[in-house]
Structure formats: C-alpha cells, structure tokens
C-alpha cells in the first residue's frame, strides 16, 4: 500500500526526517511512536503531500507520489487527521465532515450554479455519508453546531469523521486520542479497531504507547528523524535501543514536556 524509501527532509539544515524507509502492507495498522520532535508529523506531511521530500521516494499503491498535489492524493484515497485541530471555522460540524467527501465527488461550480441534475442526488449522498461518519465518532448530537464552538476533543473527533467521510484507503492519524477523555479514548480505540477489522490501512501516531501497542500490527520507532526500530509491539517492548531512547523504565509513560 505505502512504500517510503530513503526519504529525507530537513529544515534549515537540520534533518526532521532522515533516510526513513517504511513499508506498510494492505490492511495493516502501523503504529508510529517516538519522542517529541522525532519527525513523526513531518513523515505524515511527506505522505499527505504538504511537504516535499529533499530526497527519496514515496510510493502509494505502486505509483510514485512525490509530484502529486495534496488534493490529488486525497482524491486517490489518502486521508489525514492532523495533530492540531484543523477544522473549518464558521461551518457547522456536519458541513465540516461533508467537505471530507470532496475528493471522491464531482459536481463543481457550473453544476452547482445551474443546479444541474445529479447535483441534488450527489449532495444527498454526501450528506448521508457525513451523518454516518458523525455517527461513527459519536458526534451526531453536535452536527448543527458551529465547529468552532465544539470542545477541543470533539474538534479532533470531527477531523476523524471528516477523514472517514472521504472513504480513504490509507488513513493517517496524528495523535487522534490526545485531548480526549478516558471514555472517548476507548470509543476511539474501538473505532480504530473496527476500521482495522474492516481492512482499512492506517498509520497511527500516538504518545500513549499503550494505546498504540494495543491496536497496531507493527510499530515503527522514530528518534531524531531516523527509524531506530521496527517490529511487532512485543518486539518493540523488548528492544534495548527503544527502551533507552524512548520508553525509559516505566514503559508506556508519556514523555511529553
């Protein structure tokens, strides 16, 4: 599904991601962990297209991605949930989610302006899909509220719903559980597990190592922009380098500053 090879990206001479090689199989749930500033979000941006690599290749379903714009990648099935709450202010929650369907729907300015036949049907399909996505994350009660007025945790869940509304093949989740209460976190874990069971390929960044190891098939550990370990959650838990670089003594602890 995704094949990242020898990818590097630096900011002002400092490598944020360095020679990262990563291969994710169809239907795999890959966990990505690493301390603050390890380059996890940068890696996601290189896959979603918001950053260009300095070198290396990114292949998605066999084709090179580097020159493809982010909206093309979205159309081709790559969805991302950003680390911060990147929501559309001044739009309701359900409208936010509906934007997520943009990539795989067609009606443009002309069809909209002239209300061509088909635009109504497509619009209804988008709305239904958006409601489903809101149901999946448990936000239907907030549907008609302005997205901005939602608590931060709900804004993050809104991003998950928006990504799901795009019916992605590859879903990038950048710390989706941060800012959620315990019960919401559990609901999210259940949703991720359900999507995984449904065959969706996912990359999951989380600081909460327990959250990742519980869900992921395999885990990649980044430190200072480089991959320092990769393997099943059990293997990672035993890896000396990981323990010294990241996990420390109390494995599962949150090392956030």
């Amino acid at each position, binding site marked *: 599904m995704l094949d990242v090879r020898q990818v590097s990206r630096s900011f002002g001479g400092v490598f944020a991601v360095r020679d990262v090689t990563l291969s994710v199989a169809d239907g795999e749930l890959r966990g990505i962990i690493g301390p603050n500033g390890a380059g996890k979000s940068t890696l996601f941006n290189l896959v*979603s*297209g*918001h950053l260009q690599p300095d070198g290396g290749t990114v292949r998605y379903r066999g084709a090179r991605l580097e020159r493809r*714009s*982010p*909206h093309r*990648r*979205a*159309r081709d099935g790559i*969805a*991302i949930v*950003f680390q911060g709450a*990147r*929501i*559309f*202010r*001044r*739009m309701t929650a359900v*409208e*936010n989610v*509906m*934007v*997520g*369907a*943009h*990539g*795989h*729907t067609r*009606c*443009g*300015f002309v*069809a*909209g*302006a*002239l*209300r061509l036949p088909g*635009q109504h049907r*497509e*619009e209804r399909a*988008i*709305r*239904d899909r958006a*409601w489903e996505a809101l*149901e999946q994350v*448990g936000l*239907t*009660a*907030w*549907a*008609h*509220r302005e997205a901005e007025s939602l608590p931060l*945790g709900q804004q993050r869940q809104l*991003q998950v719903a*928006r990504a799901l509304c*795009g019916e992605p093949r590859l879903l990038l989740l950048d710390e989706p559980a941060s800012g959620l*209460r315990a*019960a*919401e976190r559990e*609901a999210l874990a259940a949703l991720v597990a359900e999507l995984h069971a449904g065959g969706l390929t996912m990359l999951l960044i989380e600081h909460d190592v327990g959250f990742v190891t519980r869900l992921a098939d395999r885990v990649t550990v980044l430190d200072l922009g480089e991959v320092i370990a990769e393997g099943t959650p059990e293997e990672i838990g035993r890896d000396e380098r990981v323990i010294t670089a990241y996990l420390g003594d109390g494995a599962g602890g949150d090392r956030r500053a």
Partner: protein
Amino acid sequence: MNAPRMVGFVLGGLVAVAALLAPLVLSGSQLTIYVLLGTAAMVTVGVSLLMGYAGQVSLGQAAFYAIGGYTAGLMGVHGLPTVAGLVCAPLVAGLLAALVGIPIMRLRGHYLAFATLAFQLILLSVVGQLEVLGGDIGLQGIPRLGIGSAQLSNTQSYAWLTWAATALVLLIARNVITSRAGRGLRALATSEIAAESSGVPVARYKLAVFALSAAFAGLAGGIYAFFLGYIAPGSFPVLLSFEFVVMAVVGGLGTIWGPVVGAAVITVLVQVLNSLGTEPGMPPYASSVFSYAVYALLLVLTLLFLPRGLLPTATEWVRRALRGREPPAAGDRPAAAVPTGDASGSPAR
C-alpha cells in the same frame, strides 16, 4: 422550514416584488439611482463571495466593473449586436480575472489586497493611454441596448434589466454557496491545508471564485455602459473599489443578501447627502466631503457596533424574537441524536 428561515424567505420575496414594481412609480432621477444601486449590488455580491465566503480580499473590484463596461461599450460602438456585448462583458471580465489571478491569487491578506489595487491602477492608466478605448476622454456614443430593432430606450426598462441581472447574480451566488463547490470555498477560507487534504483543489478554487466575482462585476459594468452611453477611466476610480468593499462589510460579509442591503443603504445615504451638499449655501466641496465621510463613518460604525454587518444582526434579532415559539431547529435528517454513552457527550445548551 423553520420560522426564521420562513421569515427570511417571505421578506426576501417582498423585497424582490417591491423592487420589481418600484420602477413603475419612481421618477427619472430616482430610476437612475435604482440602476446604480442594482449594479453596485451585483458587484458587491461578488465581493461578498470572495471576501465573506472564500476569505480572499480584493481592493480592485472596480477594475472588473470597468472591463465589463469597456467590453460592452467597445462592441456597441463598433456596431456589434449590443446583446452580444452584454453577454461578453461578464465573460471577458471573468476570463481576465482568471488570467491575472494565476499570479495574484497566490498572494494572501495584505499582499493580495495591494496586488488587486495595483491591478486596477495599472488597468486605468493603460486604458487612459489606449486610443481604441478613447483614452482619458473615454468611450462616447455607446448605443442603447437592443435586440434587433427593439431598443431599451427608457430608463424604466434599464431598471428592470438591472433587477433581472441582480436576481440572476443572487441566484447564482446562492446556488454556488450552497453546493459542494461553495463548501470547498468556505473551507479553504479558514484552513487551506485541511481543505487541500480533504480533496479541495485550493488554487483552482480561488481562481474560480475570483473569476466568478469578476464576472458579476463585468455584467454590472456592461449594464452601466449601455445605460449611461459613455464611460471613461474616471468612471471607475479606486474609491469605487473601496465603496464595494464597504458595502459588503456594512451589509454583512458571508451572506447572500447582505450586499444588497449594504449597497442600498450606502447608495441612498450618499444620494441624500449629495443633495444636501448641493443645497444653496453649502460650500462647493460639501457633497464630495460628505460622500467620503459616509464610507469612512459607516465602515467604522459597523466594525465597532455591528461587526457582522447589518443583515446578520437583524436576522439575529428576528431569530431571538421568534425563539420560544419554536422548537429547537430540528436536523435536516431524522437521525436519532444519541450522544456517545458517557457524560461528556451531550452538547451544552
């Protein structure tokens, strides 16, 4: 349909009907104001699309008004069918906007504002130099609009033409905004990155909305040219671009009808003050000072006291007055609104 929307619908309908009947009773000079108000409203609807919905600034919208006017005027002067001129006015304005937009719409905020302003200044000076466009003296003797031998000769018929064109512009704006494309525009206004990663081709959408707003201005310019029969670079000063922005802000950015309200309020106020300024006993500069003062004062007052603009504020009053007699707005789908099973799920009222 819930009560506030119903009220809006009825009010909008009443305004439309009143505006349609008004030319029957208005005097000649009042009809002129009517036409100018309508054309200003058309341009302002475009400004509102651009600024209020898509979050992009233009301080050069009068340039596209001018392009529409010159397109229609030039075609008319050269004996081409005037209807073709009226159709080409928005097309040429939209096309030119799409071209200059390729570099300009990459800019943001102040830079975009200055670039659009600069575009207008450059355009005006180029037009002033071009012999074919009549130079600084302008294009004169633009024929009246007509189909075959039937001509729109009286002011009343231009008022109705303006009404129809304004209605068309409002309808298109509303349709676009409430469609998938409009959602993309509103999305990119607050987060280009999230819009892009949701599949919205942000650069192309910005160009499209810029071109659409220019087309609205171009259509207004075409009507203006045929109505007055004479245009010159001086008819499209930079102040006019500011005026459109002020109208959009005063009426309420990010609304469909706000621009009409803003255009009406400002046009009428400026006219009233103009006639006050030309009363006997007033100094000769009074009327121009008045009109500048109106823009400035209205803009400041709106931003201070009604930051969302006249129309949204009024709508809010109506909504509040109706509350209590109306169950909370039901969803547009009868979904069981059951929050996730824990205490945090239910939205605060």
